[in-house]
């Protein structure tokens, strides 16, 4: 337990506000890398995922591609891209690697969100005269949102944890303290910085959990609530 006390003492020490990388700045860098990368990944993966979900085409390709992308070791990719583009563009190199890390989850969230919609709902929408565009934006997108947010949620978690490696190419973030601490054998510092990464991950996860609840369309909430209550009140007769 002492170790954790030391770690918390490290986090809250006034020394954290001085030095080459003050702690708030490291947290800001860390979050900037995380949000920047997830945002770019979302801009790429959501339209593609929706297109796949809406048309039903290209699914195999997307599954194979995102499966393969998941297998890429991000640290290796960061270093490889750094070597390819050179030191001047190392931030961009790192962001590209994090974007590649984030895309599979978001892509999967986007198209599975559409696939999970009851086909009869789509047919009903078409039957009442909705155009393809209306079906997409007024039926599929809102109904697919919870799964899409779930995809964004896991992508963010993966990226916030992985941004620690940015420091291998000298980009700061909370990884700086971890790497410095390893070399200096300063356990309190390593643990303190790791705890902060965990806290960031938990907070972001909490925020996304909240968003996920909020984006469930009202109709879906009402329907599930009603089915539940009817089911409870009157056992469904065997059909």
């Amino acid at each position: 337990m002492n170790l954790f006390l030391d770690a918390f003492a490290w986090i809250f020490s006034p020394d954290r506000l001085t030095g080459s990388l003050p702690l708030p700045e490291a947290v800001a860098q860390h979050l900037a890398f995380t949000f920047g990368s997830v945002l770019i990944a979302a801009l790429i993966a959501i339209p593609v995922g929706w297109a796949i979900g809406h048309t039903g085409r290209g699914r195999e390709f997307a599954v194979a591609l995102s499966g393969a992308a998941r297998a890429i070791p991000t640290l290796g990719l960061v270093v490889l891209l750094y070597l390819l583009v050179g030191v001047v563009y190392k931030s961009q190199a790192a962001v590209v690697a994090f974007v590649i890390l984030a895309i599979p989850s978001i892509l999967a969230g986007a198209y599975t969100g559409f696939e999970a919609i009851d086909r009869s709902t789509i047919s009903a929408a078409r039957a009442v005269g909705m155009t393809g565009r209306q079906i997409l934006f007024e039926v599929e997108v809102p109904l697919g949102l919870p799964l899409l947010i779930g995809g964004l949620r896991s992508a963010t978690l993966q990226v916030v944890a992985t941004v620690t490696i940015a420091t291998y190419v000298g980009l700061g973030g909370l990884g700086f303290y971890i790497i410095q601490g390893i070399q200096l054998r300063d356990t309190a510092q390593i643990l303190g910085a790791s705890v902060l990464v965990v806290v960031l991950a938990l907070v972001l996860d909490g925020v996304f959990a909240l968003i996920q609840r909020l984006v469930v369309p009202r109709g879906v909430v009402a329907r599930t609530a009603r089915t539940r209550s009817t089911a409870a009140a009157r056992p469904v007769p065997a059909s």
Partner: protein
Amino acid sequence: MSALRTSRLGARIALVATALTVTAVALAGCGSSGSLDEPAATGGASGGATGSATTITVGSQAYYSNEIIAEIYAQALEGAGFTVERKFNIGQRDAIVPSLQNGTVSLTPEYTGNLLQYFDKDTTATTTEDVYAALKKALPEGLSVLDQASATDQDSYNVTAAFAAQHNLTSIADLANVPNLVLGGAPELEQRPYGPTGLKDKYGVTVSFSATADTTVDELVAGGIQLADVYSAEPNIKTNNLVTLEDPKGLFLASHVVPLVGSSFPADAADVINAVDAKLTPEGLVSLNVESKIDQKSSKDIAAAWLKANGLS
């Protein structure tokens, strides 16, 4: 030009390799840790007690040049009939010294000056002989050093040739009048006695620090930093035409290659290692590093060739 290219490519490949091994070592470390405080303690106690008398565990830092020297030691010992176990790429000094103390490692190549500063932060010794003498005194119970080699590999502050010409720089002291200096180096440099604090105290040079890690020389050439901490035996000082600033006030201690041994090191093996150190010259060390970084040879091949060339195999 083509030499420059090859060297950059070499440095890059080395960087990828470093990144991969760092991950591997980090993972290995996770697996074997007994407790967070003394990661090697549990393994060490049993290893030291049960290890057979003729098995010598050679450790090395996570630094390719250190690994080459460790490999040379290992092959020399094998040639003399000892059984050798290699534990390379352990980490920095802060990770290896505890393993020597608890017996998991019995021999590792070290550097006199940096090792002395590790045990005695406030040491005033700077010359080769003073440092070696002070180091022998500063070593804790159970650790000792064998003969030091003439080869040196120490931290050094470097600037680009253009920057040196522009500001008329030959020594670290000349930096005092240069504004907005950014010093780049490994993340731990920030906390080292010769880091930003030492620059300020000894030379009155104010720098801000940037943890450029393995990208330090690239950053210096690209202009992201103005001052770079590079090991003096690194081939890329030459290939990038860098100017190493003189250190008249002894911010960096003379730092010769020296074998650091723990109590589990058999006394009769010392002669084997001392014979190696007698042949290890500063130029020799640089060319070993060139063979690794530029010619991309494995430390095994480099060590074998070196031992043969020096009549030690």
